[in-house]
């Protein structure tokens, strides 16, 4: 019985008018597909969180000149900004560490160095996520009398 088989995935047609565009969507529903989807969905959320953060902290009013302990304490007195900053921290870290993984896969050929670098950034990411989460969640404005809240 002849079984209809899907054609093997071909490289992109060598049409000089169509440039290569980005990363091809990984076939199937394996881990790479979910990472591919995560990068796009987290990117969509970070479009609001990270661009908003940059505009608020660096561009609007006096930008970074007005940022000091009192400014951050006042912001983190509100659950909204705490949630914003924690969500941005988590998504940006995972998005960035996975981006580094993909870049390391592309350029580092020696298996030991490749695995070592990937794990270095994975572990760094977990540690920084722990530190960041602890600081954001545990921050209590009333602990600091001079903070103005």
């Amino acid at each position, binding site marked *: 019985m002849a079984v209809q088989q899907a054609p093997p995935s071909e490289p992109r047609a060598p049409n000089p008018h169509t440039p290569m565009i980005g990363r091809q969507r990984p076939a199937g529903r394996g881990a790479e597909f979910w990472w591919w989807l995560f990068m796009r969905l987290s990117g969509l959320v970070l*479009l609001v969180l990270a*661009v908003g953060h940059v505009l608020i902290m660096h561009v609007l009013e006096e930008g*970074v000149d007005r940022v000091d*302990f009192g400014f951050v304490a006042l912001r983190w007195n509100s659950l909204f900004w705490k949630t914003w900053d924690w969500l941005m921290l988590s998504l940006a870290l995972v998005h960035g560490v996975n981006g580094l993984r993909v870049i390391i896969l592309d350029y580092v050929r020696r298996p030991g160095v490749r695995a070592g670098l990937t794990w270095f950034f994975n572990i760094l990411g977990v540690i920084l996520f722990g530190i*960041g989460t602890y600081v954001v969640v545990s921050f209590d404005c009333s602990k600091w009398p001079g903070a103005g809240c």
Partner: protein
Amino acid sequence: MPERSRNPVVRAREKAQEVVSSNPRIRSKARQFGWPYRGREGQWSWLFHRVSGVGIILFLFAHILDTALVGWGPEAYNKVVAVYHNPWIRLLELGLVAMVMYHALNGTRIMLIDFFPKLTDHNAALFWGEMVLFVGSMIPITYIIGKPVVEAWF
């Protein structure tokens, strides 16, 4: 003598293939993997996306640590955040904001093409539209961030 195409894209490709065939090391790689670099909007937007992404994540690693000092009170945090008010560091800040803006706009183009594949044929137009938005947003941002720097120097 073979006739040269009048299309600049085709000519650029032929030039690249000449370079490939004259270098044995690249030639063997190109035989194995094909020739991935096709120049123009596709390649450059991709390269800038990677470079800006690496720049942003390296800054983020440092930024999580400096922000964590908020947990140690005003004295520790204000000492570190004063670094960001230095005019020289503010030039780096401008570069960081530019990388974030580019990464965000270019990521939007990638998502548009990935989720609406028909837009692939308009990639160049999307890229140049993105460049207009990028430059258009960076002009006021450069003015706002650069003004205090210039005032501090003169």
